[in-house]
């Protein structure tokens, strides 16, 4: 489904601030795989997502999605098949527009032809989808998204990303800004959605426990490289402690990221 070969990206080349953000990434994802991505700050996780999403062009290498070379494709065109979610809950929605209108815009790429963006046929569909979130938002379809709480907004963003049935879903710490209970809820909604539609997914998280519990594969990044990649039986037997050991062995340095250690 997703194929990355020798992907490299250097920021500020030739200056003292030169940073090799992606240093020869090789990654192959099968359809329906759900990969959790871990690694300390600055390891290149978000840069990797930005490279796949098309926020910038890579220096060298090839990115293929579902057999199509998307390396030089424009960002908004890639978005036709790639859904993205960020930590910042404001990023995924238009705050001055209603829930309905936001969903209608997200649905534009896959909706049938219609004159009005919010029409009778789609309205019912949107209401059903929102109802399934179980947040009581189905009766507030004409509320401006800016008036919702962070968790509610993130749930709507998730719906917007999934509504167009993307081939790939990129979740960049999308529950990190939420309180634990809400984060749990949004995570559960995420899981349900991914399982139901069999969407190939990559999720960045700093919660190692969650990284091992969710999905069926885990990769760890360090200094712009994937330093290890586990799935199947090996992953089932993995514990947080063993993972830490692996990390230290692979990167030959202590975990400097407190957030990773202190989480649970």
């Amino acid at each position, binding site marked *: 489904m997703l194929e990355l070969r020798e992907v490299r990206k250097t920021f500020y080349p030739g200056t003292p601030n030169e940073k090799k953000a992606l240093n020869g990434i090789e990654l192959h994802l099968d359809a329906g795989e759900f990969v959790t991505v871990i690694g300390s700050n600055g390891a290149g996780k978000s840069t990797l997502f930005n490279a796949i999403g098309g926020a910038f062009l890579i220096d060298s290498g090839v990115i293929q999605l579902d057999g199509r070379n998307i390396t030089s494709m424009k960002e908004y065109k890639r978005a036709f098949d790639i859904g993205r979610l960020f930590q910042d809950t404001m990023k995924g929605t238009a705050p001055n*527009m209603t829930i309905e209108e936001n969903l209608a815009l997200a649905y534009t*790429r896959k909706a049938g032809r219609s*004159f009005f963006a919010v029409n009778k046929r789609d309205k019912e569909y949107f209401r059903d989808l929102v109802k399934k979130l179980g947040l009581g938002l189905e009766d507030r379809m004409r509320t401006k998204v800016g008036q919702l709480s962070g968790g509610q907004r993130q749930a709507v963003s998730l719906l917007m990303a999934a509504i167009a049935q993307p081939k790939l879903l990129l979740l960049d710490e999308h529950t990190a800004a939420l309180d634990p209970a809400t984060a749990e809820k949004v995570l559960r909604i995420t899981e349900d959605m991914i399982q139901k539609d069999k969407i190939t997914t990559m999720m960045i998280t700093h919660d190692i426990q969650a990284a091992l519990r969710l999905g069926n594969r885990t990769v760890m990044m360090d200094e712009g490289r994937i330093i290890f990649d586990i799935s199947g039986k090996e992953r089932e037997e993995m514990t947080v402690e063993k993972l830490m050991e692996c990390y230290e062995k692979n990167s030959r340095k202590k975990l400097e990221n407190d957030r990773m250690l202190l989480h649970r």
Partner: protein
Amino acid sequence: MSLLFISSLQEGFGYGLLALGIYITFRILNTPDLTTDGSFGLGMAVSIVLTAAGHPVLSLAAALAAGALAGCVTGFLQTKVKIHPILAGILTMNGLYTVNLMITGGKSNVSSAAAISVFRIFEEKTGIMPEYVKAIVPFMFCAVGIAALAVFFKTRKGVAIRATGDNEDMVRASSVNADACKLTGLALGNACVALSGGIIGQSMSFFDVGYGTGMVVVGLASVIIGETIFGRRGVTAGFISAVAGSVIYRIFIALALKVELFPSYGLKLISAVIVVIALSLPAVKSWVQLRQTQKRERSRRC
């Protein structure tokens, strides 16, 4: 009805389309578009030259198209050449000054008083008094404009343009071409502005190369007055309140001129002051709040 009120309606609706254009660029697209001064003059020039040549109705369609084109130029500079929105607008506005003079053949003043205007045609068909006609025709243009825009901004393309002004990243993430949305919005806004210039031009039967100067502020004042009175609501309400704001602005100016509050050349300063006052309201409010809190804290300490 008093002449003062009638002339306010004439001008209020005439500049109503200008307010609609400003509402589209400043409020919906959320970009400070300074093309306006140039595109207003552009509409005026096109309209007067074609009216003088005997095509009053066609001239308004041409003004509309010319305005859209001017908006496209600014849009191109903003999205493809990546020039800062304010500078992009200023550049187009500057260029248009020359373009407008080219349209009039280098003359900075053109009169079409001898030719038949859309107002004259309407007058002859209906037999209504000329003063009223000059209010009714612009009103009809505003009404049709509001209806058409209100419908358009509910369509898929229209919703995408609104979202572009609200959160551009989200529009791109939804696989919609945000640059195209911006371009369309700017074209639409400037088309309205140029049409306004065309109507005002025909109602006065002349073109003056400096007439468009300061139209951004006039339009913005109208939009803000409308919002202050009717509140900030949806797009359709926004369009109506922009035109209403334009009429109220003209009534206010007419009254102030009548009691000789300021000379007729004080118009631009007054417009600027209105905009400044309206824009400063939130800052004043928070300052008052700060003072009150400080006072409360002080009295508690004593």
